[in-house]
């Protein structure tokens, strides 16, 4: 494949209608009572592993620490950097600009990761996702999309002196400081699935993984970190 009739570069630019307001169905996906407190039970992808009681029982010594940051708001944001209405819209709502290639920005309890040239992952507290999507849709225009995937993935934090060894067993990507400075984000293979890997500091890493693979990744991480000792954080 790969057609020669059209040059996507040209077409992308020529067709850009930045005034257009896409008509999409935004949906509040978390119960309204959530704020009221008596919310229906929400289960994160690793709910069944009951990390909390593992943390209570589990060892306190070890070279690797693992924690699930569950039930956060995940928004996949798609758009073109050639579309000012998209770029500025984001900046106005978030107060910071979309990060460039393989970079991330963290401000307060919001963080955004570069995923692809036209794709970013924005993570915010679970109960803010809906309102935030609304504001973004308000201020953005032209060709863009926002998809709420809060139920479809989860975040694992891996830290400790041996965390990098566990990662080296799991991905072929080069994790060395020179190639993977703090703040960098890469989407890559992870064991036999994928993960969005972000470096939080010298010894702390973040994995964004898909819900249906969470149990597999959990099994894998326990196995890979066994020789260093795994501390589970509730």
């Amino acid at each position, binding site marked *: *494949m*790969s*057609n*020669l*009739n*059209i*040059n*996507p*570069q040209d077409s992308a630019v020529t067709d850009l209608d930045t005034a257009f307001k896409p008509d999409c169905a935004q949906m509040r996906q978390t119960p309204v009572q959530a704020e009221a407190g008596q919310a229906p039970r929400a289960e994160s992808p690793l709910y069944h592993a009951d990390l909390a009681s593992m943390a209570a029982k589990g060892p306190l010594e070890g070279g690797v620490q693992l924690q699930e940051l569950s039930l956060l708001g995940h928004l996949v944001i798609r758009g073109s950097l050639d579309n000012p209405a998209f770029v500025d819209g984001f900046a106005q709502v978030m107060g910071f600009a979309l990060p460039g*290639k*393989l970079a991330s920005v963290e401000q307060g309890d919001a963080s955004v990761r570069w*995923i*692809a*040239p036209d*794709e970013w992952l924005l993570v915010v507290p679970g109960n803010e996702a809906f309102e935030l999507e609304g504001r973004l849709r308000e201020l953005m225009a032209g060709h863009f999309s926002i998809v709420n995937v809060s139920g479809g993935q989860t975040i694992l934090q891996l830290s400790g002196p041996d965390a990098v060894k566990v990662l080296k067993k799991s991905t*072929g*990507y080069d994790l060395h400081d020179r190639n993977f400075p703090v703040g960098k984000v*890469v*989407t*890559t*293979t992870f064991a036999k699935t*994928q993960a969005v890997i972000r470096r939080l500091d010298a010894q702390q890493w973040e994995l964004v993984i898909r819900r249906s693979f969470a149990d597999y990744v959990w099994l894998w991480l326990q196995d890979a970190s066994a020789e260093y000792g795994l501390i589970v954080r509730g």
Partner: protein
Amino acid sequence: MFLIYCPHCEEHREEEEFHAKGQAHIARPLDPDNCTDEEWAQFLYFRDNPRGLHHELWVHASGCRKFFNITRDTQSYEIKETYKVGEQPGVTAAKSA
């Protein structure tokens, strides 16, 4: 195992992140309904399959999910260049001949 430069991520990645999608620059006929069976078959099935320089389509499946092109020597497996869809190869059999 190949080490492939993704022109979208702008860095080298392991082959395991990519899928090969066959020969590049095969234009879908603009008016399929007026193609002969044979013309359609050429688009559908018939390939250069060269020993030597090959322009091929790959996708960064486990990365940015973007398709792009590679010019590769199918004998030595050297990758001569990678370039985005819609762009033209800089290295061709004609040029290197």
